[in-house]
């Protein structure tokens, strides 16, 4: 416990500084310093400062998500490779390959665990600041005894003290304080609703169909509907001030998420389709953007295997021929698919690829071979 308060000390200090700073600003602007509204606005100010400090992290995340467009074809290749494979091992292998791709291309769209880790202690620090002020203790820093008492006893709408929670109002010495309980209940509902909407936005719009099909996701989706109710109950124990902080922070997240999903959706998701439609309606969509997937795939289709060295005489014979006519025989132009040379290396794909060589299957086979596990990809050229 002591270690925890030692860790929290600097954070509590910072939280107090920001709160007192906003409080004196609002007081200077003419709001009565002991009024609840002033302190409530100070909590809003605290949220603004904390979330604004986290904006650079989100900007970086958005930039990475934009760069995801560049790797979208490669990502799609991985997704196609594991299409219809819903067992745990395929899912895991797919996640691994996706992560490897992100790392290689420097386009990791995930925000890392840091923003969460930063916010949690701030939340606890505010909790303990409010708790201390309730028991009349002064803060560890800028929040002196007078301000602490003011903060603790200041109230929302004039009758719901910030330090009180639903449970403490229910067990108040002078009988249950119904007004406080109602305010707390409304806050819990609003808080849960905002959390729910934020999650629903992500789940319903910003997740690709492939992810949606996985059993893991379905499990998560069920949890999404259960968890707000878990929150509902645990929320009753928090003081109104903490809940208010949480609520404002949730609203910030909700708006931020809305803007991000609308303007920079993950490629291959419903939100991305909607954005393209919106842009198309306005006539702003560049043709290159919609066709990006196809053009880049064509670039990928380079033979990965070394071309068989061809003697000058044979090359001369092969050169004047039309490649389409030459395809069934394919002596030199499609070197890697020559069954005699690499067949031993890749028995699964090589014999098959000779048959449809004249059709569009021609460029596909080398691309499949480029992937490490050619066996799993062979279904592409099998059909």
């Amino acid at each position, binding site marked *: 416990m002591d270690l925890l308060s030692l860790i929290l000390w600097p954070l509590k200090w910072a939280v107090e500084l920001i709160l007192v700073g906003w409080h004196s600003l609002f007081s200077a602007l003419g709001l009565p310093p002991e009024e609840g509204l002033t302190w409530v606005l100070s909590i809003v100010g605290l949220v603004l400062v904390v979330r604004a400090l986290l904006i650079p992290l989100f900007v970086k995340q958005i930039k990475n998500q934009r760069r995801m467009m560049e790797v979208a074809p490669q990502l799609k290749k991985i997704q196609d490779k594991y299409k219809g494979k819903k067992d745990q091992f395929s899912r895991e292998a797919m996640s691994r390959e996706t992560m490897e791709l992100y790392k*290689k291309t420097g386009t*990791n769209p995930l*925000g890392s665990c840091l923003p969460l880790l930063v916010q949690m202690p701030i939340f606890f620090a505010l909790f303990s600041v409010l708790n201390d002020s309730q028991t009349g203790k002064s803060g560890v820093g800028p929040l002196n005894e007078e301000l602490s008492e003011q903060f603790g006893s200041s109230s929302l709408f004039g009758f719901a003290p910030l330090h009180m929670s639903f449970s403490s109002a229910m067990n108040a010495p002078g009988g249950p304080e119904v007004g406080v309980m109602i305010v707390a209940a409304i806050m819990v509902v609003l808080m849960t609703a905002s959390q729910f909407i934020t999650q629903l936005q992500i789940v319903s719009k910003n997740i690709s169909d492939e992810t949606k099909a996985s059993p893991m996701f379905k499990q998560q989706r069920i949890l999404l509907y259960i968890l707000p109710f878990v929150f509902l109950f645990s929320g009753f124990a928090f003081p109104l001030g903490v809940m208010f902080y949480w609520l404002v922070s949730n609203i910030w997240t909700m708006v931020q998420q809305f803007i991000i999903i609308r303007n920079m959706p993950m490629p291959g998701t419903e939100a991305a389709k909607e954005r393209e439609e919106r842009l198309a309606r306005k006539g702003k969509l560049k043709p290159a953007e919609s066709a990006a997937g196809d053009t880049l795939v064509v670039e990928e289709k380079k033979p990965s295997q070394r071309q068989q060295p061809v003697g000058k005489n044979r090359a001369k014979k092969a050169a004047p021929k039309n490649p389409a006519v030459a395809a069934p025989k394919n002596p030199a132009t499609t070197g890697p698919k020559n069954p005699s040379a690499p067949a031993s290396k890749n028995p699964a794909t090589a014999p098959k690829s000779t048959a449809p060589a004249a059709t569009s299957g021609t460029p596909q086979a080398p691309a499949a071979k480029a992937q490490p596990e050619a066996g799993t990809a062979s279904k592409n050229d099998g059909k």
Partner: protein
Amino acid sequence: MTGVTANQSQDLAVGQSILLLPRNAAVAALIAYRTAISPLYGEVCRYYPSCSAYAMHAIAQHGAVIGSGLALRRIARCHPWAAGGVDDAPLKKNFRYTVTPRGFVVPASHRKG
């Protein structure tokens, strides 16, 4: 004779189970976190496996103390400027136990039963 050895191996298994208690308690806590709390904010980790999955593996392999240390190091690595990628928990060289599909660690002999 055979009864004595059977008893001895059973004692060993019981002793091992007690020895494995801290790490299994930690694994249970992590399973609870992964089912109840972590879905709340979705996928955020820049690595595969995620930080909590890494922590589970590390603790199962190396015990509660060393495993937690490894997990803390991993969380410290998981910041927005990290490249991310595949980063598995290191395996213990002479790992003597069996890990169940859920992630709990049991004495190796349990597997036969």
